[in-house]
């Protein structure tokens, strides 16, 4: 069975290795340059010493401007799980049913369960290793940037070891869609659609609430009230009674203070207005030290989904008769 699995998926495995090699080289080149600049320019010292911070502003801005753009491109790795789900997971079973080869495969001297488990283990392990390699590479690359801003922001989360769980989820989704629909192209489409829906929902709606965010209120808007590594998930205005203002009310205040004009004088007029009316700023945030636990929660969610989908796919494979 091992040979059979290797023979059926060797093209995909080799393509994966080729892609990995293709991104490793430029990432290493730019990564070493960035780490060198980070060290040589003394940015680490700027970050640890609050006194030195103000003087470092220009240096930090330059560094972020130069490499932040590069880092944002890493968002492409969110497509790695989608590719594996659609091009490896979905056809794995759909193709067998579409071409009728399941009647060949399931009448040899290997039970369907063992057949599926071998395929799952080999393909799943290969996908996981590929994802892990990407995540290690990109996490290393992002090191300096994550020291300067929150490691919990989207790009950082995506290239974290969570990528492995996300990949296994996409693979299981593809398998399940394949055995459910038994049509390769339709299964690929469904895999992509569901993957994107789940990922975006999780990222936009659920992730900020894996843990309840901490809240702080400030009379004055203070830019450096929080360390830059904290992840701010919501901010706004709050009354002395503790009621939060709706977005509409906030807009009305801005309208009133600036009379429809743009914000001037660094917002000093607004701050005066807020003080007069007993309004304060509130900020909901996750401190940087919550990153590991937030990551573990997300990995758990994706692995749970992956396991459920694998089990459902295995159940359907055992029952499929046409």
């Amino acid at each position, binding site marked *: 069975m091992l*040979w059979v699995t290797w023979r059926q998926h060797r093209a995909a495995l080799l393509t994966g290795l080729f892609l990995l090699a293709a991104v490793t080289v430029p990432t290493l080149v730019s990564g070493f340059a960035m780490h060198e600049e980070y060290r040589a320019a003394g940015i680490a010292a700027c970050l640890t010493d609050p006194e030195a911070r103000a003087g470092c502003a220009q240096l930090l801005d330059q560094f972020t401007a130069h490499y932040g753009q590069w880092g944002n491109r890493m968002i492409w790795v969110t497509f790695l799980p989608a590719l594996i789900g659609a091009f490896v997971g979905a056809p794995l079973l759909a193709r067998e049913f579409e071409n009728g080869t399941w009647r060949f495969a399931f009448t040899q001297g290997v039970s369907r369960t063992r057949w599926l488990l071998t395929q799952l283990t080999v393909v799943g392990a290969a996908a996981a290793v590929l994802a892990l390699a990407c995540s290690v590479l990109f996490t290393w690359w992002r090191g300096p940037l994550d020291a300067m801003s929150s490691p919990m922001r989207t790009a950082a989360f995506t290239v974290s070891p969570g990528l492995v769980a996300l990949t296994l989820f996409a693979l299981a989704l593809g398998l399940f869609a394949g055995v459910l629909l038994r049509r390769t192209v339709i299964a690929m489409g469904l895999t992509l659609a569901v993957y994107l829906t789940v990922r975006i929902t999780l990222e936009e709606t659920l992730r900020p609430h894996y843990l309840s965010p901490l809240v702080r209120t400030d009379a004055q808007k203070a830019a450096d009230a929080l360390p830059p590594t904290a992840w701010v998930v919501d901010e706004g205005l709050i009354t002395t009674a503790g009621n939060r203002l709706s977005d509409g009310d906030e807009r009305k205040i801005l309208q009133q203070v600036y009379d429809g004009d743009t914000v001037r004088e660094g917002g000093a007029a607004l701050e005066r207005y807020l003080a007069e009316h007993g309004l304060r700023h509130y900020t909901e945030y996750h401190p940087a030290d919550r990153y590991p636990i937030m990551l573990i929660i997300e990995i758990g969610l994706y692995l749970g989904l992956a396991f459920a989908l694998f089990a459902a796919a295995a159940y359907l494979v055992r029952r499929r008769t046409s």
Partner: protein
Amino acid sequence: MSSDVAVQIDRVGKRYGRHWALRDCTLSLPAGRIIALVGANGAGKTTLLHLAIGLMPPTEGSVSLLGTPLKPGRPQTLSQVGFVAQDHPLYRGFTVAEMLRYCRKTNTRFDQAGAEGRLRDLGIPLNRRTGRLSGGQQAQVALTLALAKQPRLLVLDEPVASLDPLARREFMKTLIAAVAETDVTVLLSSHVVTELERICDHMVLLRGGRVRLAGDIDDLLAGHRVLTGPRVDDAALDGLVTATHGERNSHLLVRQPATAPTHPRWEAHPVNLEELVLAYLEGQD
């Protein structure tokens, strides 16, 4: 050996959704024989074959294979069965040699030398991808793979339906030569009756998901005859299967032994297999 039962099917039914593909089916398929499964499209032939090898479980009833109750998907069962599915599916990207390796790796028994020898005799190159073989060659490869498992039961689902007459004859030749010196039971479905007549000695006929006729072909032929006589539109004879009427004459196909006495108005003729099959396929429910 020939008195043994290869497949015992007991009151088996298979339902897809609301539709019964097979109903109330009881059969004993004798071991060591070449058994034809005949029926129109949609009569339930494929369903019966899939049930017989445990590719799917029956909705009701039970199947036992070579004396043991069948549990679908059990490797011990599967390795005793050679199966050539409809349209003989193969992995199109695999070479012939890789298909052999697939079977060798997934079965306890596999006669590699025999399979290579057979393919060499057929002139099928081992290094050719199966997707680039002709339909007839693909069927031959599928048959070779099934035979190499040295099965005790060989099941073929419409093996020659998609082949041209020449490839059909070649395929049947390979099949007969391969099973001649063994005691393998062959169960094959087809609607090419002339092919069956040459190679099969037992027949099962399905219509509308039910078994309408089953038995040794010689016994079936001896147990039926055609009666010809002046036209009668309401013939009510014992064992009447079908009646066809000409302008003046009626031909009745009846289930009667050749020795049964007949009314003097009828002239009795022996029946051939094609007439018999067509009569049962046309029969009313």
